[in-house]
């Protein structure tokens, strides 16, 4: 089994917690890294390794506060890799959380949903 990937959150980068043994895949917080490509490379590489032997079902949770344009491209890359796992015959479910006051995050989720064939559920967080 692949080792979990844990990256602690900072003011600029999200919390990353991927633990296949417990079916936990979570990306949350803010994503405005100085070097977006560099930051996401580690995540994308890990997903490539995971793709070689994914769980029968992968539940992936995005709970982002905000992110910048360069992150949005990397997140699309990440989602495309999850789409490939789904196309390979393994179940993948993506939960895209957004605050009730944040229609921009909701719209971004709708954009990704429109561009991908992998199941992506938009979930409003009500306080």
């Amino acid at each position, binding site marked *: 089994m692949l080792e979990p990937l844990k990256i602690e959150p900072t003011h600029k980068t999200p919390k990353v917690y991927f633990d296949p043994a417990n079916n936990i895949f979570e990306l949350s917080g803010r994503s*405005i890294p100085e*070097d977006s490509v560099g930051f996401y490379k580690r995540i994308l590489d890990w997903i490539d390794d995971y793709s070689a032997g994914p769980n029968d079902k992968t539940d992936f949770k995005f709970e982002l506060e905000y992110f910048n*344009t*360069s992150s949005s491209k990397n997140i*699309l890359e990440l989602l495309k890799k999850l789409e490939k796992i789904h196309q390979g015959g393994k179940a993948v479910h993506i939960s895209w959380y957004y605050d009730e006051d944040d229609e*921009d995050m909701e719209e971004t989720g709708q*954009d990704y949903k429109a561009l991908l064939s992998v199941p992506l559920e938009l979930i409003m967080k009500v306080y």
Partner: protein
Amino acid sequence: MNPNTNETTRTYMSGSLSITYATYKDMYDNNIIFGYRGIVTSDFVTSVLDIMEERLEEERQSKKLAKKVFNVMVESLTNIYVDEDKRAKDDFDHTALLLVKRVNDAYRVTTGSYVPTRDVKALKHMLDKINCMTHDELKLYYQEILQLEDATASGLTSLAIIDLARKSKNKLVYNFKFESEKITFFTLESEISQKSL
């Protein structure tokens, strides 16, 4: 009245002190709630976002409007952010300006920065194209550009500007002030209003 008062005041009001007062008055009269001139680094972006979170809370606007202003600021800062490698490599003036202004029930986020004069025509063309689009057209255009495998600075700028227009739900106001064959000062303003939410 102390006969020296006028002299003292006159002395104090000369030079940089009078500029300070004029700048303060100008910012106060124009409801500028945040202003910055300098290099926009990654650390600056995170600091200014923290400050603005507090300022918007002080302004007691609706959470939805505050969130929207915040999101527009993130994209505006993306447009004027310059990474360290780029700053080290060229002799370009990367000083930028950021202003956040309140106008009745709306906020205007304005950025100013130098761009190469050779890029002005393409930028203007893109801004005019974006300003002619409906919200639905912008959504499709954003999705189209997002999928392009163009992670260059100009590709990201296009995406950030489209995103600004989408998020603000208002036409983008811009200006180019030609300075030389090499550089032009580019000003871009987005307005976020309560009524457009």
